[in-house]
């Protein structure tokens, strides 16, 4: 079990800035996120979209904002635990214990939930049989491409994941690429490579159509797709790869005994603590009268929450408010002399 001062759930902009606000107060933190990289919605949903309302930054993209925040928290050498979902949270005396999907355990006096709208998970096929075939014939990511050799693979989706894997797996499997409309949003040069392979008969592209049914007993044998004009077509398939994008699910957060308001966690607006002492929520996931879902609001929220985190982590010390411009202690923590 790893001990730290504060466990931050969510590596989006607010979670990352929490590291900073805790760090300048001399507190250690760990950050846990279900995605494979830091940045949260900024990276997953709009890496290239400009943001215009970060104070003193007239314009930056989601990706730039994330890069700069990571730069800003570098002095604190904080561990980011990615690809991990927090599954359990429970109390032990004055401390909170957090267990993740890969069975890692953390203990701290405070938790800051900066979970946005929950964790990102792949959208799945909505057909009933699909669930029982998941992990056997139906996959939503490729972890080991050796498993996808010498197969009849139907790939669904129109983004980069669908195009990249269609191209890559066509080297050793028969690929059918299926998308609901004629336009693909993935990189156009990948698409033109795929079109070349289509001419050679290595990949077949089916648009605009969607899955109609699966034919399987124990194993998947074929799928039937339906075109927009109503025509049906059966495609021999033993493996389906679905890339329908990610959806945000609140997930286990709803089960931690916190007071919720729809998909948000209720907090007070003095220190952003929830109904559980020592659990704080900030950013899009928290709600209080007047709440605005802006990145800058999240920054303010973690700044205030970090003060209460300090009091909980250092009950015998007095909290002293300091400015970064004048405090030698803070400047030392930031690695400045």
């Amino acid at each position, binding site marked *: 079990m790893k001990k730290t001062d504060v466990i931050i759930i969510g590596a989006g902009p607010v979670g990352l800035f929490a590291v900073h606000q805790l760090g300048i107060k001399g507190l250690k933190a760990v950050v846990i996120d279900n995605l494979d990289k830091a940045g949260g919605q900024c990276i997953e949903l709009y890496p290239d979209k400009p943001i215009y309302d970060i104070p003193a930054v007239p314009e930056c993209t989601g990706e730039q904002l994330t890069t700069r925040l990571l730069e800003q928290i570098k002095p604190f050498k904080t561990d980011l635990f990615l690809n991990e979902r927090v599954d359990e949270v429970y109390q032990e005396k004055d401390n909170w214990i957090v267990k993740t999907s890969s069975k890692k355990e953390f203990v701290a006096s405070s938790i800051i939930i900066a979970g946005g709208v929950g964790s990102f998970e792949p959208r799945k096929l*909505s057909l009933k049989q699909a669930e029982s075939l998941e992990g056997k014939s139906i996959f939503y990511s490729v972890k080991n491409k050796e498993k996808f050799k010498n197969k009849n693979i139907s790939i669904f989706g129109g983004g980069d994941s669908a195009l990249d894997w269609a191209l890559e797996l066509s080297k050793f499997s028969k690929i059918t690429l299926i998308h*609901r409309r004629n336009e693909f949003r993935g990189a156009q040069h990948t698409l033109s490579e795929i079109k070349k392979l289509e001419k050679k008969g290595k990949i077949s592209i089916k648009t605009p159509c969607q899955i109609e049914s699966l034919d399987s007993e124990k194993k998947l044998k074929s799928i039937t797709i339906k075109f927009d004009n109503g025509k049906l077509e059966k495609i021999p398939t033993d493996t389906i790869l679905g890339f329908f994008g990610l959806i*945000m699910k609140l997930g286990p957060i709803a089960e931690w005994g916190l007071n919720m308001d729809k998909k948000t966690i209720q907090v007070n607006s003095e220190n952003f603590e929830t109904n559980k002492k020592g659990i704080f929520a900030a950013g899009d996931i928290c709600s209080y009268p007047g709440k605005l879902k802006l990145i800058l609001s999240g920054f303010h929220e973690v700044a205030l929450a970090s003060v209460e985190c300090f009091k909980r982590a250092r009950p015998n010390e007095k909290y002293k408010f300091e400015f970064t411009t004048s405090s030698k202690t803070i400047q030392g923590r930031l690695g400045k002399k």
Partner: protein
Amino acid sequence: MPKITYKDFQGNSKTIEVENGLTVMEGAIQNNIPGIDADCGGSMACATCHVYVEEKWLNKIQKAEEAEEDMIDMAFEPKKNSRLSCQLIVSEELDGLIVTTPSKQT
């Protein structure tokens, strides 16, 4: 004020007056219409305000931009008449619009 009808997948419907300039999504959220989540708050960054627009209205409303279509790729059970309700701005021309919410958003 223009009247917008929100139907759910089971056929229950509610008609409400929505102020000009608001989006069909905002009309739903402000009036507690179930079936529209709008997780991202209207920044076209999720697809949880996905609706099906009644066929006869498809030609009367502005066509979806590419970015909206890209997002609809990630919606639950997209169809030809799928739109994101955060991109449909209410005006007198939309008076009588009927949209149906999918059986779920996520």
